[in-house]
């Protein structure tokens, strides 16, 4: 196809979306800001931003600072102004239409901020029947820490570069996943967190546990039947054999979190049995609603589902007094590949060349969850995940499309390299911060817990010698340490200047 034909084909595609948008705008009898936001956002998501970015650049405008339309001061005149705006948009064609559309979208990004979120009725986008709600983004740490490593919001060809405050999020299923905004939580807790946020008090404690948690149900790899091709078995981690030891450590952990006035405590995946959970709730109950840690997230041991045929792998989020906030179900199943020696009399003798190590696959037998829960905490739109959820490719797309910008991840994994890579990708796409508490099975060494915050040198792994048994992120201490570094750097610069002179 000739370049001209390709271009024409492209224009036809864009023109199709313009036509669809015009049709929808004509049918909007009373243009609410959220409705217009979703339609315009959907237009750019489907048709792309290349053309408009080329135009803005040619006009000397930066896509980050698109010129806004001036709306009347008084809100009661906004709707009339939006009506007129829509009418004038409908009168435009081609790139003029696109330019006005992007300016309206950027203007609406500010207007929607004024309105109570979320808009109750989801709004259909331009493509198919998928419906959206407008949610406020809240990359709190990215905001306080200042412009850091480049995020999508600062990059070329992204609509996020135009929109600073809001995002249209699908309320319908996305490839069998669903994003659910969790809003029904205690007002006193909400205000408390908001207050702490205003004061800059934000601490996250990653506690991988000193106790080497042992599982009596962990299968012996050597006993799993296998052939020359290997073998597979399900595993169930429903009980902890050294629970007494764990029950001794838990009060220590909670006392430490209380003394440090921790905002969010994260324990590892699959480490808390019913008995331990009872103890955690009891201890937190004594702290009361003003106590610390303000939030506690832990991974429950496997427990049977209602049907009794599968396990559930869940993370539980509790408030300061041990009351329930939410329970999240893992959306991905762990399958671990282990290599074992051949010497087993259950093996079929297939000759000398068959006597080699074979892979054994251990798989969780769990009922997969189907929803990402996003809670609008003042410190960020928090989404709990469990281990593999963080690195799963398909789920990663869903995370990226969500309004989550703070990920808390109990984990049970031998390695965390892939977790760290995913955390960096989410930092770029969502300006997100990710906190992962990781341990491996029993006393076997696993890669350490870590956090990834959107700032230069924002990846920090737990180093037991330096940090002690737990890794504590404290926003205030981080900022003060940064100040000290800058002062020392300035001093070094001045000293070297003096030496030169």
């Amino acid at each position, binding site marked *: 196809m000739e370049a001209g034909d390709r271009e024409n084909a492209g224009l036809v595609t864009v023109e199709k979306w313009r036509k669809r948008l015009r049709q929808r705008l004509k049918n909007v009898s009373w243009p609410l800001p959220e409705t217009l936001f979703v339609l315009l956002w959907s237009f750019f998501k489907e048709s792309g931003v290349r053309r408009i970015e080329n135009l803005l650049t040619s006009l000397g405008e930066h896509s*980050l*600072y698109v010129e*806004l339309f001036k709306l009347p001061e008084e809100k009661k005149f906004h709707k009339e102004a939006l009506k007129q705006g829509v009418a004038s948009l409908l009168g435009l064609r081609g790139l003029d239409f696109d330019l006005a559309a992007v300016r309206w979208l950027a203007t609406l990004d*500010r207007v929607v*901020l*004024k309105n*109570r979120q979320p808009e109750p009725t989801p709004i259909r986008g331009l493509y198919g029947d998928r419906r959206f709600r407008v949610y406020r983004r809240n990359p709190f740490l990215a*905001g*306080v*820490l*200042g*412009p*850091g490593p480049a995020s999508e919001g*600062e990059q070329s060809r992204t609509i996020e570069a135009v929109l600073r405050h809001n995002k249209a999020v699908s309320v319908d299923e996305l490839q069998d996943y669903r994003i659910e905004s969790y809003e029904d939580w*205690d*007002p*006193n*807790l*909400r*205000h*408390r967190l*908001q*207050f702490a946020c*205003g004061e*800059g008090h934000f601490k996250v404690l990653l506690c991988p546990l000193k106790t080497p948690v042992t599982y009596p149900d962990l299968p012996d790899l050597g006993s799993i039947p296998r052939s020359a091709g290997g073998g597979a078995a399900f595993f169930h981690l429903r009980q902890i054999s050294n629970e007494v030891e764990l029950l001794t450590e838990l009060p220590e952990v909670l006392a430490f979190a209380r003394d440090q006035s921790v905002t969010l405590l994260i324990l590892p995946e699959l480490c808390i049995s019913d008995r331990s959970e009872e103890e955690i709730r009891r201890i937190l109950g004594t702290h009361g*609603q003003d106590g610390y840690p303000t939030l506690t997230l832990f991974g429950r041991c496997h427990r049977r589902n209602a049907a009794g045929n599968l396990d559930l792998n869940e993370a539980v989020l509790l408030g300061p*007094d041990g*009351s329930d906030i939410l329970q999240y179900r893992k959306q991905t199943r762990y399958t671990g590949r282990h290599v074992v020696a051949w010497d087993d009399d259950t093996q079929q003798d297939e000759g000398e060349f068959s006597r080699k190590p074979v892979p054994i696959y251990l798989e969780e037998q769990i009922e997969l969850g189907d929803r990402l829960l996003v809670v609008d905490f*003042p410190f960020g739109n928090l989404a709990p995940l469990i281990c593999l959820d963080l690195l799963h490719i398909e789920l990663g797309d869903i995370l990226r499309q969500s309004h989550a910008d703070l990920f808390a991840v109990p984990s049970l994994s031998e390695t965390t390299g892939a977790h760290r890579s995913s955390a960096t990708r989410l930092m770029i796409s969502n300006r997100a911060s990710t906190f992962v508490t990781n341990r491996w099975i029993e006393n076997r060494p696993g890669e350490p817990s870590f956090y990834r915050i959107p700032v230069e040198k924002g990846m920090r792994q737990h180093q037991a010698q330096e940090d002690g048994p737990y890794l504590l992120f404290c*926003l*205030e201490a981080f*900022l*003060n340490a*940064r*100040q000290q570094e*800058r002062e020392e750097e300035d001093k070094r610069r001045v000293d070297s200047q003096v030496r030169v002179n």
Partner: protein
Amino acid sequence: MSLTPSLDPAFLSDLDGVPVDEVSPHVETVAREGSPAALKTLTGVFLDRALHVLRSGSRRDLLEEALAVSRGISGEAGRLLRQRDPATYGAWTALDNLLGEAGRRSDQDAVPSILKGTQGLGLRVLEILAKEDKPVRRARIRETLNSLPDRTERPEVTESHLSHLLYNLEEADLVVRFRQGKEVHVQLGSAGKDLVKTTVCPGWVDNLLGAMERAIRGEQLDRTKLADEIFKAGAPSQLVAEKLGTALAQVAAKLSDLGQTPRQPRSASDYDHPRGSRPDGLSNLDISPRAGYDWGHAHRSHGLEVQG
């Protein structure tokens, strides 16, 4: 048997003007066990306090008030109140939502409460940016804030403090931060530009300065027209505009006369005059020279002789 203070309506009615931490301890008790009279009294107190804090409080004040109210609708106390008195529970929930939302918002309507919570530093940052009229390095903003004349009256602005301050200002679109190389720069955002025009350096001040320059050049000024100009440009009131218009017109007339008649020797102290003792017929004007302003400077710089 006397009521415990928390349950005594007479005691509760006195909580109207007290600091919020004196209110909080009683809310849960009233929610759990308060009589209808106590509930009604506390509801009234909440309403009065809310009105006050919505009109003049900072975001922190709003959140503190919301926290106090929420004690009565959260947890076990909230559950009991909902059972005992759903109407009061509903009223307190609505109030809690209102205060909480007001304390959370960062849109343009929230700008006054946001700035109030910065103890004046927010406005200072806007002044620095308005004066430069171009992006300013973050480090320079901190240096400037820490070298202002009022520095001794408040603690040093630390990195942590500045980070939170700029974050809050950026949330309200008052400023925008961006990275240029290794440095972070800050400039006025769209809301910040609007605020500068209306409050930090209002347009009518530019009109005033323009009129002063015309006066210094020897132009005669029409006081009515000038007052009208200043008022339309946004002066706080017609009265202020009229006073300024009259004063400037008289100054213009005097300067014009000085330009045409032989100059009389003056001492510099004649220009540093206390209120009410103006030389040359200005004594009846109720304007105060700005503290430290050297009236003689205007004359010296324009070639008029001042003899000390």
